[in-house]
């Protein structure tokens, strides 16, 4: 009797294990879909990289061989990445440049801790993860060349589809920014609204406590809603039925931060990366719609 019960538990465990591994393989490792969202992110990231790093890598800042070579390598790799020529190689090259800038060259070029900020790490991390995706299969010179080759050889036109397992890592990175960010704020100093008051006073009012009524209450409400929203975004951005209102809310949240605090490229990078949560095929259809292409032509 006991042995029968044990074997039934074992069978159930095996079934659960098989379902989980099958789900992991089908939905993550072997998952394929449109490469358009990842291509849009590739293009957006290049502009953000230029906005953040370009001015510090111009040769006249410190005309040394070290700076000139670092700058040249950065500009060449990002240009190729933007154009989408040898895209995956160019993205990996850009990622290598960024790791070099983040870990080694940053302090030499700009002094202090160099580029070791949250917003720069996010750019480094996302670019490295992008190199693991087929981000050159849409909106790229690589795509144009592949189409021409197929037409010339009378082959079927290549589809804008590829393995997207690494895009989940990008989504995971964004979720962890929110989760650990919220975790860091889960203490009385922040939740009471005091830390929000500190930010406001240090940026806007010098050493005077703001006299407008309800300031303290407003800061308290902002603190609580920030933490709740960040925990919520970390989890529910993955749930499709919440995305319709959660993504606009998240964009609004990031834009408020961008407007009120000096966050450099951080908020805009996050806004761009929300694309990763949307079903790639939906993005594909939307882009078709935007360009006036009927599904037959794709």
């Amino acid at each position, binding site marked *: 009797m006991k042995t029968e019960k044990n074997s039934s538990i074992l069978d159930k465990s095996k079934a659960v294990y098989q379902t989980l591994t099958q789900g992991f393989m089908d939905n993550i490792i072997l998952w394929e879909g449109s490469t358009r969202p990842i291509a849009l992110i590739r293009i957006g990231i290049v502009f953000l990289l230029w906005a953040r790093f370009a001015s510090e890598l111009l040769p006249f800042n410190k005309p040394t061989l070290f700076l000139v070579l670092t700058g040249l390598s950065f500009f060449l790799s990002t240009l190729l990445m933007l154009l989408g020529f040898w895209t995956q190689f160019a993205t990996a090259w850009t990622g290598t440049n960024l790791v070099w800038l983040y870990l080694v060259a940053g302090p030499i070029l700009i002094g202090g801790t160099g580029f070791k900020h949250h917003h720069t790490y996010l750019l480094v991390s996302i670019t490295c993860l992008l190199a693991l995706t087929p981000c050159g299969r849409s909106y790229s010179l690589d795509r144009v060349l592949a189409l021409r080759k197929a037409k010339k050889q009378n082959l079927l036109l290549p589809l804008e589809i590829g393995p997207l397992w690494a895009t989940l890592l990008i989504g995971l990175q964004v979720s962890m*920014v929110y989760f650990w960010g919220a975790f860091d704020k889960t203490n009385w100093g922040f939740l009471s609204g005091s830390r929000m008051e500190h930010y406001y006073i240090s940026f806007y009012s010098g050493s005077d406590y703001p006299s407008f009524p309800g300031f303290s209450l407003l800061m308290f409400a902002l603190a609580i809603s920030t933490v709740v929203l960040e925990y919520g975004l970390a989890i529910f951005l993955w749930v499709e039925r919440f995305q319709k209102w959660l993504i606009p809310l998240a964009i609004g949240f990031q834009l408020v931060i961008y407007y009120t605090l000096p966050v450099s490229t951080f908020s805009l990078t996050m806004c761009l990366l929300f694309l990763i949560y949307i079903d790639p095929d939906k993005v594909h259809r939307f882009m078709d719609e935007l360009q006036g292409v009927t599904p037959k032509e794709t």
Partner: protein
Amino acid sequence: MKTNHRLIIYGRIGVFILLASFIVLGPSAQQLFGYKLKYLRTWRMYQGRGLGVFVAEFLLQHSNGTQMPIDRFKVLGYYSRRDAPRSVVQIENQQQALSIARRLCQRLGQEADVRLYTRKASRRGWEWIAQGETNLCEQ
């Protein structure tokens, strides 16, 4: 077309698990367990911003115990906050606040009862330094 190549599939599984663990658990080393490791990033945005911010409020106490805020810029003869020098606008410590309080007493007369409330920003919230215990014009 989905790949059937075993090496590619195992490679993907390995890289995915490794990077996912790094992304998810990396920040926990410092944020949860307190170990500061050079290559593990934390997500503590604005953690140090605003710390040490000093807030000073000057109040005039009437004989019946009621208090009203003093506009230090007007009392010290400046047209507005923008007109005042940085040392009056941005008070950074208790000494500076006491020095301004003394100047306010001189302007308001020694019979005035000026009280000072000061606090400093810390991670735990506000740390009160003075809470108007004494009349600064009597000192």
